[in-house]
């Protein structure tokens, strides 16, 4: 009973695919045909159902299972053998060992360093020609520098780390270039871990090793943090800045009352829900969702972007409303896999928006939003954001 082809392309820059919105009101647990995959996919579009699926480990994240929709056979370059691709009990054990690194307090202590990185990037923007691509000037370097900071990448290696991590996120680079960059980063992280095995430092990798992580586990973790936290944060930074420049009344609200910044960040996260691919699961037994039985072995996609536009939870969902104050969105997922780095991402976004408002009063789009190029599959984002300042 596969009726329609699953369609995951956003129809306009800001919103979920029309098909998913329609399903949300007509058929919230729908079996569609996933063209190109030769299989069906259960599209879950209501907010409550999306949260229920993501909370339930029987909808498996284990990407080493050959049937898993994010298995390497379907998603080349997928993250394997890491918490994002694991079920309990291993997931609980390994996440439990690292989650103390990302508490609200520990992350808040990163603020001065993040401010410094952002200020240096803005200094460079002001020193050169007053126009360019924000993705290259700020959105892409910042998250990789921050992760480098967490991993204890020494200053002299920042350039190498930064350049290679920019290449593997670049969908326009050739597969060979991306593979080479990925290998270079992995090898680099391995060297870091080996150095820490010799001489422990004051970084996450050293502390994980001290807490019992093996060499391979430490390398894998370093790599996961980069893969999960680099392009995602970068995409959100450029989309957030684009929105504020395209809708000056929103920018004005932030100028008038900087205290609403955290709420604005939350609302932009909800609105764009860039990491919907994180909601892919494999049903490991017959499971009930909204009264419908999903058979064991089915591919299930908890569509967080559509869930975040569910009018029963977010009134007037298509309006960006900084006063909404809704922290219950699912842009970072839900359940045991909810983003480990979410507080880091929030902080980076907050600092960037604040510094841009304070230091770049003439910042403006040089190309209308309708002509910008958006990433269509994988994480949602912008290839470049040409601006003048």
């Amino acid at each position, binding site marked *: 009973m596969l009726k329609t082809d699953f369609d995951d392309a956003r129809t306009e820059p800001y919103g979920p695919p029309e098909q998913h919105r329609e399903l949300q009101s007509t058929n919230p647990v729908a079996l569609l045909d996933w063209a190109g995959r030769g299989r069906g996919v259960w599209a879950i579009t209501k907010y409550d159902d999306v949260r229920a699926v993501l909370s339930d480990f029987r909808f498996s994240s284990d990407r080493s299972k050959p049937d898993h929709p994010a298995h390497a056979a379907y998603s080349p370059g997928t993250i394997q053998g890491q918490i994002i691709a694991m079920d309990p009990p291993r997931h609980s054990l390994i996440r439990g060992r690292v989650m103390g690194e990302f508490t609200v*307090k520990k992350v808040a202590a990163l603020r001065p360093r993040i401010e410094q990185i952002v200020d240096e990037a803005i200094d460079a923007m002001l020193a050169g020609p007053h126009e360019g691509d924000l993705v290259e000037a700020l959105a892409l370097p910042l998250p990789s520098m921050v992760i480098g900071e967490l991993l204890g990448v020494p200053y002299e290696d920042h350039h190498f780390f930064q350049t290679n991590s920019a290449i593997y996120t670049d969908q326009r680079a050739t597969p060979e270039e991306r593979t080479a960059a990925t290998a270079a980063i992995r090898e680099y992280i391995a060297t870091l871990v080996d150095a820490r095995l010799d001489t422990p430092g004051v970084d996450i990798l050293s502390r994980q090793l001290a807490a019992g992580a093996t060499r391979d586990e430490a390398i894998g973790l370093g790599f996961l943090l980069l893969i999960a936290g680099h392009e995602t944060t970068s995409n959100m930074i450029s989309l957030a800045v684009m929105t504020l420049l395209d809708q000056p009344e929103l920018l004005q609200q932030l100028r008038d009352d900087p205290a609403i910044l955290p709420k604005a960040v939350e609302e932009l996260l909800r609105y764009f829900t860039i990491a919907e691919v994180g909601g892919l699961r494999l049903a490991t037994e017959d499971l009930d969702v909204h009264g419908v039985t999903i058979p064991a072995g089915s591919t299930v996609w908890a569509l967080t972007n559509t869930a975040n536009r569910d009018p029963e939870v977010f009134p007037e969902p298509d309006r960006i409303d900084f006063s909404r104050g809704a922290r219950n969105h699912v842009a970072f997922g839900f*359940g045991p896999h909810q983003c480990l780095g*979410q507080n880091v991402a929030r902080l980076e976004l907050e600092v960037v928006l604040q510094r841009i408002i304070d230091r770049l009063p003439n910042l403006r789009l040089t190309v209308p939003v309708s002509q910008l190029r958006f990433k269509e599959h994988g994480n949602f984002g912008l290839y470049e954001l040409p601006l003048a300042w």
Partner: protein
Amino acid sequence: MKIIASRTVCIGAGQCVFSAPESFDQDDDGKVVVLDDSPEPGAALAAVREAVEVCPSRALSLVAD
């Protein structure tokens, strides 16, 4: 109302600390610590209700005393 928190279920996302910093903290392992398990009705209780709602691992609940 009284807060019940399951430290076994907690996955350390810190959402509760964001929502209700007077009632919740995290220990060095990232696990939730309840600072005050009986929030005053009003703003404090509302903040705790938000924390219960947003906790990704459903580790938190509010029960009648």
